């Protein structure tokens, strides 16, 4: 019973993804763009960073300007994760009251 249920769920999801992958997609006659699953619309973000990062932040290293300036929240999260990791290690390996020294 359970195997049959799993098979049905698997076939449903598999057929959905196969349909989306084979689907020719929508054609926008105004701009001539062709939207297919897996090849999304072109975005401007990468060109924006390459052309403006040096002028806006003054850093030659565009990766650093993204990590610490444009995506500062991400770095704040990473730093908090490291802090929490040290906190966890310190709690797990702390000297208990019964331990000597």
């Amino acid at each position, binding site marked *: 019973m359970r195997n049959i249920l799993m098979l049905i769920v698997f076939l449903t999801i598999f057929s959905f993804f196969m349909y989306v992958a084979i689907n020719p997609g929508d054609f926008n006659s105004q701009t001539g763009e062709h939207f297919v699953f897996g090849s999304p619309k072109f975005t401007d973000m990468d060109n924006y960073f390459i052309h403006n990062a*040096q*002028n806006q*932040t003054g850093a030659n*290293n565009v990766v650093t300007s993204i990590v610490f300036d444009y995506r500062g929240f991400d770095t704040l999260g*990473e730093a908090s994760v*490291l802090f929490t*990791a040290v906190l966890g290690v310190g709690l797990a390996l702390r000297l208990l009251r019964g331990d000597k020294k």
Partner: protein
Amino acid sequence: MMSKIVRTQANFLYPFILIFGFYIVAHGHLTPGGGFQGGAVIATGIALVIVAYGYDRIKSWIKKSTLTATESIGLLCFILTAFIGIGTSFFYNFLANSGLLFGDRVSYGVNPGYLNTAGTLPIMNLAVGIEVLGGLGAILMYMMSYGKEVDK
């Protein structure tokens, strides 16, 4: 404590490892690398000294409380630097192109790279580097404090 050969090598090598780590941190806005990577390199130097001399001898030189305090100070500096620019937005680069500390302009395109640029990025790199070296060093010290030294 390891043999005399290992201790001599560690004595010779650890200043160079620390200098290389601080170089990576200080040049984070010019070359590949940055706070996390440079802090990890500095923590490698600390690990070399800890392994060469053993926890029992090292614990009077490097204290766990010092390392954890270093880590907290680094994280606080990072958050404070982000908060100074809160007049415009959180993580606003208020020093960039201002002419003050780290405030020189840089021209678009290929250039040799100057240290006195990039605004708050070097400060944040330094803060994250301090935090990572304190955190990884503290983890190492906590783990080494539960090992037992065996005499051969």
